[in-house]
């Protein structure tokens, strides 16, 4: 690998790298995101490799194969995209490999059965960018994810990587960079939405030579995985953002605090750091600017609360991840007591793009108060699960129906939970609101770090709220009383309601307690923990009342309020349910209708999931 000392050398190297790329050479990209890997994309990739070796040996054909980062369309993995045409194949299996090479590469014909079929129009779509899932997106940060091999810095550089860094180090002063960030209107993508430029300025103004920048990659929200995909698919982008930020703030040491549960992201990030060090883009005197910067990785050890910045700092310092009160803010008194800036992965990844395209251009995307794009991981009861990057201000309806492809099995949309356990839910009547910081807040939700869980008509909102409450309750560090005991009290009340033991007044108690927990808790975790409950009460109070007063669960979910029974006409007497019932609550003879003993039944739902004849009824 080359070693770069000046801006000139970077340009020269990039030119030589670009020159090597043959624009006409077919390139097969296989998605290597964790989702596709679970589907077996690694095997697909190996098969392509073998096929290539085979072809080359017979001097028949030349093409390139690479594993890229996550394409985002996880629902249809493993994904294979063939460039330069951009043909996308979904659900590719090893057995399809030979055919793809034979048909698409050699004969330039498209294999129709592997194409994505739009469920709305039943139309086969050939090119990746024409798929509705991608068509409505604005992929700034995720743009390169599907194109480059994240384990090679050369690919990033040949795509223009580190050009923003060069621009900054050669022609901008730290103040210019901060000014540019302020003008871009970028707001922290970790959830709170504090203007990034101002945060940097505050840190820059602090006295002292030692400062730190931290990348918060402790993505703890259940159901959110965009940080993971960026780290896996384009770690250099994040590093570049951090170097620029460190330069602007005068920091010489950076940390990436990343979840232990993301082994692939850690691996790619490690590789990216060592490559950047080897090339000279990290270390002493970067590009001959006199600026030094190094980055270390710290692994999170499985505590959601460490996503809170003061807890994260404590954790890096080797203590338990207990938040401390602010002020003083980390910008004044952070890691080891020094001024520290913490930004989310997505914020750091936005920085090189802003510098590259200019703050005016960036500020033209989005709404009056919220600029740029935002990434959602759209999960739950939705057709196209995946990562979606859209301009801020897009409507929820567009996001769920146009990009997300709507609700599966023809069911109806009930609510969307935005912002994970700290956020709130938005019901169907507000589907047309623009997604931006202010509108969401007015509905009792938050932008959060970008988790978006879609709930269909079969979701019980009380159970849904209890799920999030259980999560925050388990993840509470236990330091302050409202969060430690208060969330437990709320959870127990919710569980009581779900079990059919709700009492009149419970809902008011939840509201009262929730409001006080929000106002009195020490850190963001406690201050937002009641949100899911409060927002579900706000929009689905009737469902709570149904549980408490009528003792029914309208969505037939809550175990305490439902009964399982056998639909006589559907039951074939196959005995599958009988054998699988863990409590032995089902009786019946072969080829006779079975009966469920309601006293023994624990409503585990096992019979329902094993029955092939839809003969189990839940009421």
């Amino acid at each position: 690998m080359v070693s770069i000392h000046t801006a000139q050398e970077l340009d020269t190297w990039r030119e030589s790298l670009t020159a090597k790329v043959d624009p006409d050479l077919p390139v097969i990209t296989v998605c290597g995101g964790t989702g596709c890997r679970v589907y077996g994309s690694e095997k697909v990739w190996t098969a392509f490799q073998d096929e290539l070796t085979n072809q080359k040996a017979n001097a028949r054909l030349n093409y390139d194969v690479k594993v890229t980062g996550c394409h985002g369309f996880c629902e249809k993995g493993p994904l294979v995209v063939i460039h330069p045409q951009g043909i996308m194949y979904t659900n590719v299996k090893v057995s399809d490999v030979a055919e793809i090479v034979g048909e698409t590469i050699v004969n330039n014909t498209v294999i129709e059965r592997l194409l994505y079929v739009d469920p709305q129009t039943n139309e086969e779509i050939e090119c990746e960018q024409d798929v509705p899932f991608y068509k409505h997106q604005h992929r700034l940060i995720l743009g390169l994810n599907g194109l480059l091999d994240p384990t090679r810095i050369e690919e990033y550089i040949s795509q223009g990587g580190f050009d923003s860094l060069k621009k900054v180090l050669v022609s901008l002063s730290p103040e210019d960079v901060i000014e540019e960030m302020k003008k871009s209107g970028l707001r922290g993508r970790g959830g709170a939405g504090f203007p990034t430029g101002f945060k940097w300025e505050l840190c820059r103004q602090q006295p002292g030579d030692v400062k730190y920048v931290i990348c918060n990659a402790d993505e703890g929200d259940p159901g959110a995985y965009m940080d993971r995909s960026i780290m896996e698919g384009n770690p250099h982008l994040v590093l570049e953002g951090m170097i620029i930020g460190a330069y602007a703030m005068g920091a010489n040491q950076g940390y990436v605090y990343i979840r232990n549960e993301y082994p692939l992201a850690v691996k790619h990030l490690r590789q990216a750091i060592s490559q950047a060090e080897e090339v000279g883009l990290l270390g002493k005197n970067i590009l001959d600017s006199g600026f030094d910067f190094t980055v270390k990785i710290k692994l999170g050890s499985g505590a959601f609360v460490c996503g809170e910045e003061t807890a994260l700092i404590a954790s890096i310092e080797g203590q338990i991840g207990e938040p401390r009160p602010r002020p003083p803010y980390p910008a004044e008194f952070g890691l080891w007591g020094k001024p520290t800036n913490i930004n989310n992965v997505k914020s750091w990844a936005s920085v090189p793009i802003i510098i590259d395209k200019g703050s005016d251009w960036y500020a033209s995307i989005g709404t009056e108060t919220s600029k740029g794009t935002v990434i959602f991981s759209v999960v739950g009861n939705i057709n196209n699960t995946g990562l979606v990057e859209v301009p801020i201000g897009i409507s929820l309806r567009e996001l769920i129906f146009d990009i997300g492809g709507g609700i599966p099995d023809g069911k109806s949309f009930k609510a969307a939970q935005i912002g994970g356990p700290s956020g709130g839910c938005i019901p169907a009547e507000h589907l047309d609101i623009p997604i931006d910081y202010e509108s969401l807040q007015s509905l009792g939700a938050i932008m959060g770090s970008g988790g978006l869980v879609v709930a269909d008509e079969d979701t019980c909102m009380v159970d849904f709220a209890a799920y999030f409450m259980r999560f925050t309750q388990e993840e509470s560090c236990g330091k302050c009383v409202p969060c430690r005991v208060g969330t437990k009290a709320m959870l127990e009340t919710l569980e009581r309601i779900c079990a059919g033991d709700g009492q009149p007044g419970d809902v008011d108690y939840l509201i009262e307690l929730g409001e006080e927990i929000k106002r009195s808790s020490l850190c963001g975790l406690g201050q937002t923990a009641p949100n899911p409950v409060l927002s579900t009460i706000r929009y689905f109070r009737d469902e709570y009342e149904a549980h408490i007063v009528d003792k029914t669960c309208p969505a037939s979910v809550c175990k305490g309020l439902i009964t399982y029974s056998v639909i006589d006409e559907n039951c074939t007497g196959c005995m599958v349910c009988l054998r699988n019932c863990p409590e032995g609550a089902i009786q019946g003879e072969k080829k006779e209708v079975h009966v469920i003993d309601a006293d023994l039944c624990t409503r585990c739902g096992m019979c329902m999931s094993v029955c092939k004849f839809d003969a189990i009824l839940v009421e």
Partner: protein
Amino acid sequence: MPKLTINGSEIQVPEGRSVLEACREHGIPVPTLCYHPALEPYGACRLCMVEVSSPPRPSRLVASCVHPCEEDAVIETDSEAVRKSRKTTIELLLAGAHNDPMLLALAEEYGVKEIRFTLPEEDLCVLCGLCVRACREIVGVGAISLINRGMARKVSTPFQIASSTCIACGTCVLICPTDAIKLKDITHFHSVHGADSEFERVYCQICDDVDLSPVVIQDVDVLVGAKVDQEADLE
């Protein structure tokens, strides 16, 4: 020297004061559990919440023990919002420590009538962390810490067994606001070196008397005599 308004009266405090310190120095009562002047503030019990409005920001509740006095801040220590917050917090504290007299007195003061949530087992420890911090900051030993997290949190020695670092000084017992720690717990958990060494009488090499300085004998004569004389004088 920031100037600020607490409960309508303007006061001036030296740089670096917390709101709680300012209140205490001016005789304004604010209840706390986890605060001790000799320790670093911790901000965990949330009883000392006060309402701060520093325009243009909307008013909000902050823990006064950790919140610095800011120039021109307007602080209310007994507003409706403050009382409501404290009331909830006291009710939550009573969920575990339902018989603690101090908490019951506070409950009376803030009108907590009903405890709507109780933990299955009574636990006097309210996890204020005073003992842990005192052990580390005052005693300098750090024999105990807050282990686990969330509801499972508790004060304990490492591995929840005898600690060889504990010096059984009892500071944790003294500082505990709810009397949740007994020294028995600690002495049970620590081992005094040399505990089983046998005690032997030591004889004075000069006077052969048991371990008692020989002059005492003479002194007794003198002193008793003196005392008798004194009494004689009195009579």
